[in-house]
């Protein structure tokens, strides 16, 4: 224990006003942490990032172009929004490309455990990138967000594959229209 309050400290008053002002605003803890995360981002070769404003490291896009699996040849854009409570809370991630996928709905919500219930402050942006990449390699019909797609993947793999292809080329699957997203 330190004796902070040996009675000498009474001069606080004068000190307080005298030194105020004129100093640089400090970066927030969220900002320091995301800078570290991004500087160490180790992207798989199928992924790249885009920063609309290089000074704003809290808002960016991740582009995934899978080179194998059902989604080979497609180009999928995800938006990342990192809030002031990062890394206590995960970034908000949405898929901006319409995709026929069991774990991604048509509004761009993504069902990935580490984006919600299994997020921990030790995880990084890199963990999310790998998680998202994995969703394209191994779509998981057990955790459906697009129920039709999930059921189809389980019951008729070939039909599912055809529908994924049709969606990526641009067209209707059922009543939903998908914009072309082939590279």
């Amino acid at each position, binding site marked *: *224990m*330190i*004796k*902070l*309050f*040996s*009675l000498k*400290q*009474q001069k*606080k*008053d004068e*000190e*307080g*006003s005298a*030194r*105020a*002002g004129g*100093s*640089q*605003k*400090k*970066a*927030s*803890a*969220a*900002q*320091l*942490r995301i*800078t*570290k995360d*991004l*500087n*160490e*981002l180790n992207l798989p070769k199928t992924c*790249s*990032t885009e*920063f609309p404003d*290089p*000074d*704003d*490291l809290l808002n960016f896009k991740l582009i995934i172009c899978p080179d194998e699996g059902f989604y080979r040849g497609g180009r999928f854009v995800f938006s990342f929004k990192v809030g002031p*409570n990062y*890394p*206590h809370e995960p970034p908000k991630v949405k898929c901006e490309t319409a995709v026929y996928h069991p*774990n991604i*709905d048509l*509004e761009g*919500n*993504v*069902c990935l*455990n580490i984006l*919600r*219930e299994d997020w*921990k*402050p*030790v995880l990084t942006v890199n963990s999310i990138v790998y998680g998202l990449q994995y969703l394209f390699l191994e779509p998981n019909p057990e*955790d*459906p*967000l697009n*129920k039709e797609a999930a059921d189809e993947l389980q019951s008729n793999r070939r039909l599912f594959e055809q529908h994924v292809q049709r969606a990526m080329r641009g067209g209707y699957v059922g009543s939903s229209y998908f914009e072309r997203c082939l590279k």
Partner: protein
Amino acid sequence: MFIVVTTMDSGESQVSEYQNRRWMNIRKLLERSGPFCHPDFEPSAEILDFIMNSCKVLVVGAGGLGCELLKDLALMGFKKIHIVDMDTIELSNLNRQFLFRKNDIGLSKAKCAVEFVNKRIPGCEAVAHHCTIQSLDEGFYRQFHIIVCGLDSIVARRWLNGMLVSLLEYNDDRSLDQSSVIPMVDGGTEGFKGNARVILPGMSACIECTLDLYPPQKTYPLCTIANTPRLPEHCIEYVKVIQWAKENPWGSGTALDGDDPQHVAWVYEKAQERAMKHGIANVTYRLTQGVLKNIIPAVASTNAAIAAACATEVFKLASSCCVNMNNYMILNMADGVYTYTFSAEKRQDCIACSNTPHVMEIESNATLQVIYDKLCEDQGYMMKSPGITTVINGRNKTLYMSSIKSIEERTRDNLKKKVTEMGLYNGADILVADVTTPSTITIKLKLIENEDVEMSR
């Protein structure tokens, strides 16, 4: 304690008799030694004088914990208390925020609390600040000896922690100047559970060191709420997370506001429809509000216990009469009463308190390239691919980052620019991230006049 006012000869001795009796119990702690005293404690009458007339304490938050803290501290003899809270009083506060009355609804919590305590406790000079903590500057926070928090927000705690860490000053040998340390006593409650802790910024575990101790917000797997809802909460979450964005009932771009009764009513109605479809009972308006605002019912006795623990720690810090708790106490009254104190450890890679500023000397006309090369080549750094950012006029600026292609391309030209051209100055901080350091580090630039310039003068 009760006070007997005896009839005395003069008014003056009546006052001092009253004063003597009023502080009798506290003086027993401060004016004599005892077996539990801190080894360095020197009993004296001056300590009470310090507590009453010099020691400035800031109470952050004037809610459930804040009311308790303000009352406790004022009754202990602290007079120079400031309290900050941006909120106004609501009807639902009145069951536990006992400094407020029905007539106060709609008024500032900080102001009402201060008015009540100053009137009720003779000599108390509490001061109210009805604003956000972020709107108060360094000079404001620096005036306090101790800061005690009763907050319900992690973001606010982290902000305050960052502020107190930024006020730390270091000697030339990079050792901490202890007179710049402002202790933070932090209390938190959630229903029947609570915690109290003492933080000596730069010396013991800070909020960021122990960020994993905060329970994450309750969330449900997205696929469960979308396809296999079982609980009423799942239905409400579905409307909140998926249906709101899909239907945009107030036009696109209108965010769901848990304080807007119309928004809550809309969510409630849709959640009921969904619950009906899946055969789920018990979606109520109250639950809807609770899920949207993440409300956990507040319990008055938890607040009282945690505030008492915090106020005791403030007293110990101010007087040095007793060793402080080391350093994190938890209290659980959900099932019997359980309490436990442990020593939370300071992290060597803490983003906030391990970041003691390095100083880098460069010539005043040096370019960013000079800094970059120093970071890669100087013995003290030997970095691999440093990413360099700064804050200029409150805005973040990326100076150079080689690891991200799109940013590298757009910041490459900065390397050729003089640091002063980019708004940096003598004493400015740059933030550097690299694989070789456990977290982003702060480097203070020391610009030295170039010798050639000196000679040509």
